[in-house]
């Protein structure tokens, strides 16, 4: 494989960082969620790269499970966001601070 391993990993890192930035900066809960998904994807990329370059299946399997879990998480998260919307509250993560203290 002419492309060295570390390039995949660095790409993964950059994508993760971008997702992190987005997570910190954005205020719409849906967008925040999407940034989380971006981070998860970046991690999946790292796993797959590891699997390929070390000739093992662990990474791929793990990535698969990550996808599954992400799906479940999205389901629940969306449900919550919908409920927030239905309650008439602001779609702004800064305002949703009922869990303080």
């Amino acid at each position: 494989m002419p492309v060295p391993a570390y390039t995949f990993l660095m790409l993964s890192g950059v994508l993760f960082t971008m997702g992190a930035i987005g997570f910190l900066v954005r205020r719409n809960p849906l967008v925040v969620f999407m940034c989380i998904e971006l981070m998860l994807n970046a991690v999946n990329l790292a796993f797959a790269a590891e699997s390929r370059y070390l000739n093992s299946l662990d990474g791929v399997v793990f990535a698969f499970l990550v996808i599954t879990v992400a799906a479940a998480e999205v389901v629940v998260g969306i449900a919550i966001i919908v409920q927030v919307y239905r309650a008439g509250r602001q779609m702004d993560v800064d305002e949703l601070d009922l869990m303080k203290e």
Partner: protein
Amino acid sequence: MDTLAPLVLLLPLAGFLVNALAGRVLPRRIVGLVGAGSVGLAFVASVAILVQVIGGHRLDQTYFTWWQTVDFNVPFNLYVDPVSTLMILVITGVGFLIHVYSIGYMAEDAGFARFFAYMNLFVFSMLLLVLSGNFVWLIIGWAGVGLSSYLLIGFWYQRPTAVLAARKAFVMNTIGDVGMVFAAFLVFLNLRVLDYNSVFSRIHQLPKGGTIITAICLLLLVGAVAKSAQLPLHTWLPDAMEGPTPVSALIHAATMVTAGVYLVARMHQLYDWAPAAATTVAIVGGVTAFFAATIGTSQVDIKRILAYSTMSQIGYMFLAVGIGAYTAGMFHFMTHAFFKALLFLAAGNVIHAFHDDQDIRHMGNLRAGLPITFWTFLIGTLSISGFPLFAGFFSKDEIIRAALSAAGSEFWLGVLALITAGLTAYYMFRLFFIAFGWEWLSRDERHLHEALPIQTIPVVILAAGAVVAGYIPVANFLQPVFGHAVEVGTGAFIGLAALSVLVALTGFLLAYLLHARRPELALQWRTRIAPLHALVEHKYYVDELYDLVFVRPGFALARFLNTIVEPRVIDGLVNGVASFFVVEAREFRLLQTGRVRSYGFVMLLGALGTVFLVVLFLGYLPVRLGG
């Protein structure tokens, strides 16, 4: 014997438990029966033990291991030899008689059951003290008798004087306890064992007369002095007379106060190895004997006179064990138990007859009204004064003889003891003549009545003992433990005996003259030596001295601690710790913003930090740790 010994202990304990827990609801008869009966049964068991001990049996039996750690093994073991056998016989025997007496004496008291519970507790503790086979249980018993003494002195707790007296006794006792405990520490530190057999066999490892063994013996002496009311820890005993008379008889005459003598006798191997300490014991005893006798000549409360007399006689015992005449000391202990208990119980009858008035100047001419009490008290007085053929004569003489036949300081202590014997006869007969009177009136106008048989029979029995006890071959019995006493030639023997009789007679005659025949002479004398008399009457102002030096500063310190240290320092510290947490929590609360973004930020920061650390430790950064 290994079942008899614990039985002796457990019977009074059982009596205590029954009367303590159920005494309020049981009828008085049962309470008295349990209280006196348990001691009586213990006496029977003691007699059984006596039979075996005479036959040569001994006991050093461990019943269970009480405390076991790496180095420190304390078993519960009981040690029976002639000395402890003698002690338990006296404790249970005389104790039984006093318990029976108390059934009558305390009959009208509301705290009847409580009294017997405490008395049984005392007997149990005293037996534990005596039968214990190691230092730890000795100290436990020691503390137990101190507690019982406190409870019984302050029995009539509504009386402020009684409460104060009880407290005083307890505080002084505690000083002694501290000495005992430190002595035990030293023993363990140097010998690594605490049971008697092991300790005694290892004593010779220490240098004879060296600092360690002398320190141990002196610390034990502190305990003995406190418990036996010798100088300088003696001031609690006269005050202890606030307790009911049977208490004074049992605890402050016959048994508890003699615990110090027992201690020295039991530890005789230690004291043999530390001559300086032994001499200290003798000096303390001799001086106290004289000192207390002088005070006794001026007192007017019947029980106080007897208290000082006790102090004095115990001084004799201390003198004896201090000079190595252990057998003489124990012998005197036994005879003293008889005649002192007798004197106290008889005095109790008199006090009852006078409706709790204890001033001897209000008494007099008791022969017609209280005949039994009169004659038994006379017998006791004769015995304590050392009149020939009575028990006191034999035992006191043995001590004086042992002292005078020695050299150096012991000889002079013997002289002091002889003078004290004269004083003893004087003040006892002074008491007798003033309180009981010498006139042979056949009628009595005050309509006094003799006490009930339940109170007079024990007194009579004790009186018999006060005569006969002198003939018991105690020396032979104790010989396996202490060896033979020093022998004196027959001439010296008779000479000394005659001398002591002479001295006693002098005292008697002086008392007869001043208080029976010509009381006005007594008054004249008193005014002539007024300052001296005042000194003696006020007990050499020792109480006042202690008050100034110890009590007042102590209270001042307590006040200071209570008003300044307690609120500011201690409470401040505790509150400070609490407030620290409160403040901290308040600050940390601000973290819980409830905002996802701040949480997420912190998490990512953590991730950042982790990566940073990984990078650092894997050496990927140009920066290296530690240069």
